């Protein structure tokens, strides 16, 4: 009864935006679509919210077919598009009232659901939406998407361009909404947010690379991984890229993540090589792969 997507494809002129993708979201699940710009996330959202027809395939949302039952879907889903789409010249309160009225309800009737979120912007309820800060706009958009008590909530990159503090608060809000029984499909380009979902689909170039829980996805990384640090990051990456046994090297925070081709990798060998390359005060320590490591590994194929 959550979301069911079967073999959905969609093309624009000569671009294949979605290439036959299939997945299910269980009722009450917090499901993440993780992928960069241009992966096809927004196209999928538009198909599932009945704003766009797919070329091929079928999909149901809350048990309704996206083509045949589009009116029922519109009544039972909330959608927060990536681009701020509320009325800029209506006030905070007017926007919320407008969306409540459109859906035949009132702010009072469902106030419980939005209270946590709305209370933070209520002091500014007479301010025009266009004059709100990014974080406040985001909270208002979420309130408007929730005001008719939807069964399924679609959030298209709600945290893009948002600072880490507000991102964290936003995800805490999502967790609370999930507890109230709402199914949530959320997309994000931030891999660290993926760990907060029940299950995730990694998506790139219109195809799904993998679907699983965040913990299981991480286990799909095929190699042992090492944190390597050195005095000069640029030289370190260059040296490792020229190393004959290199499998992959990517910067990760203050270290690079290095994987070796050989099954029996010898740290001392590499240390000797780095020393010969003139690198100083370097360190090589085993580390655990992250979702981002796995994503890059799968995306390479």
């Amino acid at each position, binding site marked *: 009864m959550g979301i069911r997507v079967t073999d959905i494809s969609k093309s624009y002129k000569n671009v294949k935006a979605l290439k036959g993708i299939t997945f299910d979201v269980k009722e009450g699940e917090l499901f993440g679509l993780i*992928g*960069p*710009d*241009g*992966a096809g996330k927004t196209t999928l959202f538009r198909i599932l919210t009945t704003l766009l027809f797919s070329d091929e395939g079928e999909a149901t949302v809350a048990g309704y077919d996206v083509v045949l039952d589009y009116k029922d879907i519109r009544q039972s889903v909330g959608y927060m598009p990536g681009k701020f789409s509320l009325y800029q010249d209506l006030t905070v309160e007017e926007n919320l009232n407008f969306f409540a009225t459109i859906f035949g309800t009132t702010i009072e009737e469902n106030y419980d659901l939005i209270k946590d979120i709305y209370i933070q912007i209520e002091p500014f309820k007479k301010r025009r939406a266009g004059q709100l*800060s*990014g*974080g406040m706009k985001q909270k208002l958009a979420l309130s408007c998407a929730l005001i008719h008590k939807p069964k399924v909530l679609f959030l298209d*990159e709600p945290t*893009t*361009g*948002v*600072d*880490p*503090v*507000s*991102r*964290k608060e936003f995800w805490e809000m999502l967790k609370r909404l999930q507890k109230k029984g709402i199914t949530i499909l959320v997309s994000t*380009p*931030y*891999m*660290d947010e993926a760990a907060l979902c029940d299950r995730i689909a990694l998506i*790139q170039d219109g195809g799904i690379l993998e679907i699983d829980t965040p913990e299981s996805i991480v286990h799909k990384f095929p190699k042992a991984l090492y944190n390597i640090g050195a005095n000069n*990051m*640029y*030289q370190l*990456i260059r040296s490792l890229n020229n190393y004959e046994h290199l499998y992959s090297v*990517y*910067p*990760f*925070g*203050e270290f690079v993540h290095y994987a070796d081709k050989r099954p029996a990798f010898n740290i001392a060998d590499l240390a000797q090589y780095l020393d010969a390359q003139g690198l100083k005060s370097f360190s090589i320590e085993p580390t655990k792969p992250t979702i*981002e490591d796995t*994503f*890059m590994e799968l*995306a*390479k194929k």
Partner: protein
Amino acid sequence: MKENNVIEAEELTKEFGAFTAVNAISFEVKKGEIFGFLGANGAGKTTAMKMLIGISKPSSGKAKVAGFDVYAQAESIKKNIGYMSQKFALYDDLTVKENITFFGGIYGLSRARIKEKTKHLIMELGLDGIADQLVGSLPLGWKQKLSFSVSLLHEPKIVFLDEPTGGVDPITRRQFWEMIYKSANQGTTIFVTTHYMDEAEYCDRVSIMVDGRIEALDTPKKLKAQFNVDNMNDVFLKLARG
């Protein structure tokens, strides 16, 4: 201005009416340094950056960028810095080559120099097959890499990057940072804002703005030690949440 400094700001302030967007910030950025300029949305980063690139006049305080004064020599600053942002990068309805030619012209490069730069750039970025395609048809990651290269066409001493990697896939994001390392290694100063905290760790030093003030400024390593946490995300959360 000290010889090795590319930016010097002292008590730099911007007020909008009763609201102080940037509150007396002071810092220096050295030649060839990768300097991360962090802060929550609304902390004052954009306003501060606008003053440094010569498009917004400070209310008070002093600042010099690439040797020029932000009050008296704003035009010289514009000519001597590179700038790229996520929002404004290249013209979608010009081709790759046309964009390079256009920006080369804007920065006052000679025709011969533009020709040479175009050839070099297209080769280095591996864009040979698509040099005559409209930029609008390129994937975001390619656009951002091209845009960065274009911001360096006139070989500025310093380049300002405003959230250059937002929404870019993780592999391209790292290729982008390798380009940053390379230019820094060649002596270009990099001034960068980002919301990716792992990228904050790639910087030589970072400053974190909270409510118009710089509340922390040091190497990522020292900041992590100072706040007793093991990543920059936690440094940021501790500072910005107060």
